[in-house]
């Protein structure tokens, strides 16, 4: 399968050069995706397909374009590529659009990232249906359940990339996950939901399916009786699974594209204190089994770990070739892989006990952030913190602020990074957060 994809990528590259491109990058990939869903005692959905596609970057007479297609019929390829090259000639030349420096391809690590699990490729349908049957039963262990859906998702992918200036790479990976969503009858018309889903590279990493389903039910039960609390400026403790939703907006502001376009509140802050000393995060593409792990990035740049923020001091940006040239900076890598946070030495319960009073955020509801100014406002669901313990569920409340203030108000991090995301946030504790409610 590898060699098929690579042959195809090489042929595409040749055709692009023949059609008049000075440089080109071709990528051919395929992805197989399988879904089984069970709802309220029966199989609800079966889905299985393989998607294949080709993408091509062209550098023609100082001009640049990108093209993709799922129509891989050989008789279509010449026309597709010929038209793509012709189209590119109509654009304006841009001196910064050049193929990546091949020196950046060098130094690729020769390590096994353990991304491939053969048991996922060969997973029998009966095994999935057996898990789902048990999960479905576990989610209905409460008389207030209106409906519960349990799902198993798994798949595998492979791709090959080649460039006219010597890049060659192939990669494969598997993924598998399962979980449940449960809706309960609150009695007053409201139907609170709880969800729990885990996803990893290998089957052996996942916790027991029934335990996951039970957690889905438990999370719904914990939402019963939620209410709005008075507005306050107080402590916010963020669950490890919710940390990614809060901090993902930082990644956009860390990109050279945002900085060069004057749309980043983190521009001109390299080597400055942008967060409290508790905030240390690295981009680690070489994490074994990581959901964002890779040996080379989208441009072919050899992957290596990079410090992003160290003890609150901003160390590096995400810099790709194009915006790096515009800014006069060396490329690092174009985007985030796995974000690994330096953990603290205490768990969630201890941190809640320390907080004393405030709110424990378990998930977000809408909201947004402005990367230019760092202003944000998000709806959330969670629980009160009273006398150092988790209290009743809260709903219909927002937090509002600016990331530079928020990050400086980070007072503690947990020892519990979320393993089910490429955003491996631990519990995060912030002081002086603006909550709006009643």
């Amino acid at each position, binding site marked *: 399968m590898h060699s098929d994809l690579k042959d195809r990528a090489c042929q595409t590259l040749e055709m692009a050069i023949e059609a008049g491109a000075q440089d080109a990058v071709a990528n051919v990939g395929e992805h197989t995706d399988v879904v089984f869903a069970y709802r309220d005692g029966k199989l609800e959905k079966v*889905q299985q397909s393989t998607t294949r596609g080709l993408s091509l970057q062209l550098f023609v007479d100082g001009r*640049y*374009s*990108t093209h993709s297609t799922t129509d891989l019929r050989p008789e279509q390829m010449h026309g597709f590529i010929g*038209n793509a090259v012709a189209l590119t000639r109509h654009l304006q030349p841009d001196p910064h659009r050049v193929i990546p420096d091949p020196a950046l391809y060098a130094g690729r690590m020769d390590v096994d990232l353990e991304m491939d699990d053969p048991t996922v490729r060969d997973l029998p349908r009966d095994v999935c249906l057996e898990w789902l049957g048990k999960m479905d039963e576990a989610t209905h262990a409460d008389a207030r359940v209106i409906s519960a859906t349990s799902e198993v998702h798994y798949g595998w992918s492979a791709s090959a990339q080649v460039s006219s200036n010597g890049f060659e790479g192939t990669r494969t990976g598997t993924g598998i996950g399962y979980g449940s969503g449960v809706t309960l009858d609150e009695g007053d018309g409201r139907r609170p939901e709880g969800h729990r889903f885990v996803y990893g590279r290998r089957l052996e990493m996942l916790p027991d399916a029934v335990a996951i389903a039970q957690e889905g039910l438990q999370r719904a039960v914990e939402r019963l009786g939620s209410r709005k609390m008075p507005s306050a400026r107080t402590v916010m403790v963020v669950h490890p699974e919710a940390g990614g939703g809060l901090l993902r907006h930082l990644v956009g502001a860390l990109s050279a594209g945002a900085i060069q376009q004057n749309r980043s509140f983190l521009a001109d802050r390299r080597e400055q204190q942008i967060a409290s000393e508790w905030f240390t995060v690295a981009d680690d593409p070489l994490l074994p089994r990581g959901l964002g792990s890779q040996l080379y990035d989208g441009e072919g740049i050899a992957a290596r770990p990079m410090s992003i923020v160290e003890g609150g001091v901003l160390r590096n940006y995400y810099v790709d070739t194009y915006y790096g040239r515009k800014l006069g900076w060396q490329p690092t890598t174009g985007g985030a892989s796995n974000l690994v946070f330096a953990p603290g030495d205490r768990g969630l319960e201890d941190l809640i006990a320390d907080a004393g009073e405030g709110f424990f955020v378990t998930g977000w509801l809408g*909201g947004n952030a402005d990367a230019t100014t760092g202003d944000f*406002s998000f*709806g959330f669901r969670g629980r009160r913190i009273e006398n150092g313990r988790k209290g009743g569920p809260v709903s219909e*409340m*927002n937090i509002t602020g600016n990331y530079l203030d928020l990050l400086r108000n980070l007072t503690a991090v947990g020892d519990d990074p979320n393993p089910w995301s490429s955003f491996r946030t631990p519990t995060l504790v912030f002081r002086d957060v603006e909550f709006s409610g009643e």
Partner: protein
Amino acid sequence: MPNSPPQENPYDDWFGVDETTVYRVLSEAMGRGADFADVYFQQANTMSISMEDGIISRSSTGVDRGVGVRAVVGDQVGYAFSENLDAEAILEAARTAATIASGSARVPPQEISRPELPNRYGLDRAWDTVSVAERLPLVQKTEATVREMEAAIEKVSVTWHDRDERILIATSDGVRCADRRPMATLGCHITALRNGQRQSHGAATARRQEIGWFTDDRIRDICRKAVDRTMILFEAQRPPAGEMPVVLAAGASGILLHEAIGHGLEADFNRKGTSIYSTLLDKQVAPEFVTVVDDGTLPNDRGALNVDDEGTPVERTVLIENGILRSYMHDRISAAHYGVPPTGSGRREDYRHVPIPRMRSTYMLDGPHGYDEIVAAVDRGIVAESFTNGQVQIGAGDFTFYIKNGWRIENGKRTAPIKDVNIIGNGPEALRNVLMAAGDSKLDDSTWTCGKDGQGVAVSLGIPTVLVKRMTVGGVNA
């Protein structure tokens, strides 16, 4: 290749298949006893152009071509797709889809019906007849127009996108229909610098339209909106935190309807009992002056369709009539569950996905009040004007939308500008709390894309000026 209405038999020209193959695929999909099956062929050709720092520095094209096969038993669905349109590959997809059922084969009827479809977005010039050289001036004109409008602007990025989508639907009931769906989007995003501070915002228009529609005047309107929305941010502050009355400005505030009501009325959530609206059909849910529709019939609108993605004709569905909840939005599965005709709401992102009930263009009709009367009725509150996000929890009914631009209201007067606050409320409660609605209902033709179950579809929305008694506004505590 004619544009629209579709030609007599687009099988061969568009997808290289014939009726015999299609019938075999449908038979295979019902080979284990499905109630019905359908086949969805799609080819979408797209082109994007982007301009930054005064240079058209990138263009992208895409071809997305494939076929999806679905087998349905009651509310159970088997689905598979193929990007290879050879008969054997499609038959293999049909065999996978068929595994949802476990009975004996059923045979689809041989009779074919080709419903007369309307022509809601026929173009004089289809996008495949327009060269890239004709598109570039629109992008350059947009950039130049923005720069002329305001000296404080540092950065302008302009994005152009057009899509020419052909679909062919064949169902086991014998329905055969084809549709060709255009879409064109022009947007600009700007950053301005004033007194050492930077602000960014933008505007975009997306319609099922042709190149001739993008006149200088229309380009100027988009640019004016982007500049005004950005420059006002320099004066804007966060409002005080807490519950307060919210005036929804006419147009884009229709996002309230989309999040607070629309999703909850998609019938899949209701047949499963997971929507807060599951038990409210034919009940009074809003004041008498509130009528909300979901409409796929508006010519050239972003949410318009000639036929939905299950082969059902698309209609104007009255969701709430004079305050009474009248209808959910149905696909075939939910319509069969409720024993009602489908509403033409079965939509999918593309051939990789199953159709589910979705919105098209969701808006509220005019109300009896005046704009000035509405603002004057508020002692201390806000006006919500432009938005950059929205979301809802279907069961709890809690919805949110993010206000990028707005105003404070103090003592019945619109005063200082506000920015960047999230609003959160509860759907049925917000509906009951609609106090007034003006006679200025309008649609917003921005690039609204609605996400559900991992599928994005194009929608539009609209509303007149409306006063909601109270919602929770993000902001700063005194």
